[in-house]
């Protein structure tokens, strides 16, 4: 049967067909939908982990127990999971273990565009790279087989265009003849103390060498000879752009990007006049090809920054562009917090209090945008709290009072809790705001250990965030309603003033939560045009439901208007109106 599947759906399908028993992940664009699709297959135990390190460790355990395991994450997730990954390369596996990593060239939804292929080389783990959804499925299955055959974890690298691209996939059946998992002790292989690890390391090097040799014969590494004046080595989505733009060029399509099949590359290079490497981001293949003594051209013509497109590839090869019309200057349309979002009022208050806000990653990072403009730093998940501690170590006592860390519930449980431990332990006086909207919103509403449900929608214990803060030693814990501006501002001001660590936790849910009895939409508001003096105070929260309507006379005057279809009735704008012009419709 044929279906149109996204790369992510196809990876989930591949894991199912491969007899995978356990799938786990921490969400992250563009990898999230792999696990969201894995739950369609009841044979797979699918779960969200609190962070990527835990997720990989769960997969490692499943593999050591004898089952096939899939772990997925976005590129930056591998930074978090790197510790277990590097030593997993030494232990090898029992049941096949596949780690999917989805890169985000162009940073469509990421804070950097690191190239995960470097991790494969650094951690000494083989890596496959599919070019479309059919390959996503086939390569996932092959990755499980290679993992067991070579006794190594195998990485599968996707990217935004592969994960979120859709193409036709031929479905297959699930294999059922895998051995039933059973405990089996093997400490010499699985206990990585120096004595054992010294034995394992040479085995890893030998396996990589063997895989590189075997790679020359693997069907996924394919030399396609056409016009021999130009030979292009490429992989992943870049292969598609090469075929699109230069259909006559000879190509060496690499399905395995680590280790490289060196013999095959030499054979290909010998058959063509000029060698190019077409790859996004780092010169990963190019450097190794050059180290083999082959004179390849790559990053001299293709940028290390951003993603490739057919047009950019045309430019790189000096081919004419097809542009029929030029881009025009139009007002931008950046993403925005939703109407009624409980984060909005907190940033309004922080702006008013002139706080120095160390930020974190989630929907609330949009608090950086005008008019809220209340975020001063954002580096990686969980970093807000450590950064706040660090800032308070160097600035004056007066300035210390301005320092506020802001972090979401999912991010707090991901890696924020460690920072809070440090903050208390080392007596930092900063204030931490935990924006608990009862969901992992940014990546599309995933449950987390504080929401009370699992990925499979089973009820679960919900972490008590205030109690957790108390347990690490925070003495001042305040719960606020973020939709009450006066209360929010007052409590924040009090806690910022206090020369001790304090935590302020907001308690209103995300407006996008679908589960019953969590979020309730309020009364829709409207502006009484007779009362509105056009002071623009309500525009300072940047709500998408509030529009400034200029007066017809072309003057600076005008009035505010509320779009009744968009308004969720959070009441925040009403609190800002000094003239009682905003109210709910009766």
């Amino acid at each position, binding site marked *: 049967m044929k279906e149109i599947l996204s790369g992510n759906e196809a990876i989930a399908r591949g894991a199912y067909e491969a007899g995978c028993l356990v799938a786990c992940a921490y969400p992250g664009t563009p990898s999230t939908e792999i696990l969201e699709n894995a739950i369609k297959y009841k044979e797979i135990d699918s779960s969200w982990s609190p962070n990527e390190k835990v997720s990989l460790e769960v997969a490692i355990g499943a593999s050591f127990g004898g089952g096939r395991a899939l772990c997925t994450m976005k590129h930056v997730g591998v930074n978090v999971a790197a510790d277990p990954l590097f030593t997993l390369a030494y232990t090898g596996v029992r049941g096949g273990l596949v780690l999917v990593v989805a890169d985000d060239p162009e940073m469509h*939804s990421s804070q950097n565009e690191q190239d995960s292929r470097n991790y494969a080389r650094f951690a000494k783990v083989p890596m496959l790279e599919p070019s479309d959804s059919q390959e996503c499925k086939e390569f996932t299955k092959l990755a499980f087989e290679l993992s067991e055959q070579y006794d190594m974890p195998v990485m599968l690298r996707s990217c935004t265009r592969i994960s979120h691209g859709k193409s036709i996939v031929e479905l297959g059946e699930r294999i059922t003849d895998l051995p039933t998992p059973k405990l089996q002790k093997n400490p010499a292989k699985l206990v990585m103390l120096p004595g054992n690890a010294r034995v394992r390391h040479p085995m890893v090097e030998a396996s990589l060498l063997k895989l590189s040799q075997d790679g020359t014969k693997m069907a996924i590494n394919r030399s396609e000879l056409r016009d021999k004046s130009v030979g292009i080595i490429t992989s992943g989505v870049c292969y598609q752009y090469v075929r699109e733009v230069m259909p006559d060029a000879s190509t060496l399509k690499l399905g395995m990007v680590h280790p490289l099949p060196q013999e095959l590359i030499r054979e290909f290079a010998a058959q063509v006049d000029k060698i190019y490497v077409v790859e996004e981001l780092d010169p990963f293949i190019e450097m190794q090809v050059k180290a083999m003594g082959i004179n390849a051209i790559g990053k001299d013509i293709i940028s290390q920054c951003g993603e490739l497109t057919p047009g950019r590839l045309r430019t790189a090869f000096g081919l004419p562009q097809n542009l029929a*019309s030029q881009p025009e200057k139009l007002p*931008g349309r950046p993403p925005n917090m939703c109407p009624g979002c409980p984060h909005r009022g907190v940033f309004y208050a922080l702006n008013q209090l002139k706080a120095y806000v160390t930020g974190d990653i989630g929907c609330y990072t949009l608090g950086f945008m005008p008019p809220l403009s209340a975020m001063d730093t954002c580096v990686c998940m969980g970093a807000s709290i450590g950064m706040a501690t660090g800032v308070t170590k160097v600035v004056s006592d007066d300035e210390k009072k301005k320092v506020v860390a802001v972090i979401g519930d999912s991010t707090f449980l991901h890696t924020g809790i460690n920072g809070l431990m440090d903050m208390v332990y080392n007596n930092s006086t900063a204030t931490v705001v935990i924006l608990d909207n009862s969901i992992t919103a940014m990546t599309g509403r995933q449950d987390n250990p504080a929401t009370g449900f699992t990925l499979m929608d089973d009820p679960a214990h919900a972490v008590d965030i205030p109690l957790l803060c108390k347990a690490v030693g925070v003495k001042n814990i305040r719960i606020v309603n973020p939709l009450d501006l006066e209360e929010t501002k007052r409590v924040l001001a009090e806690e910022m003033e206090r020369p001790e660590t304090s935590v302020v936790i907001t308690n209103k849910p995300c407006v996008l939560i679908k589960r019953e009895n969590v979020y309730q939409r309020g009364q829709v508001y409207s502006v009484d045009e007779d009362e509105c003096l056009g002071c623009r105070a309500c525009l300072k929260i940047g709500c998408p439901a509030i529009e400034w309507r200029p007066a017809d006379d072309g003057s600076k005057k005008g009035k505010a208007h509320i779009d009744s279809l968009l308004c969720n009735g959070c009441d925040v704008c009403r609190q800002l109106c000094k003239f009682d012009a905003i109210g709910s419709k009766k």
Partner: protein
Amino acid sequence: MNEQIKNILLVGVGGQGILLASEILSEAAMLAGFDVKKSEIHGMSQRGGSVVSHVRYGKEVFSPIVPEGEGDILFGFELMETCRSLPLLKAGGAVVANDLQISPPSVLMGHEVYPEGLVENIKTRFPDLLLLDGQQMAEQAGNVKAANTVLLGAVSKRLDIPEQFWIKALEKMVPSKAVEINKKAFLMGRACK
């Protein structure tokens, strides 16, 4: 079968239902026996940001995104976004646009104005423009929510996919309660010149 690849761009604002429309289009193309690829960006861009979905079909499709300047049809759900994506179209490409304006944050706050004369602007650059009031037509069909389907019907008229496959795709992708209204809305759009 036509060897040429058809390139369609669906553009608008996050939350307008662009992804569903592009799924229906892809499904119809697959049912008609074509190779299909489709690509778009999820994530940050969904919080009310610009959305561009690329659908390509033909005998064998390579790139999942429409090469710059090779779009055959631009299917715009919102006027400013339609205008923003014009550079993706080939010379003489067709535009099917919904006559709808959604203000971005800078306009809502009164810092910028929503650009005027967009329709004329599009028309001078791409004369093959079909401007429709999707909302109003959908209301006639029985539900405002079917506006995208009306527009999809108008787009379908310009593509070499037989009607039966569009109907099959609608039946598969639209919730069963809404199928009848959507079929009606689709055929209304398809009847537009």
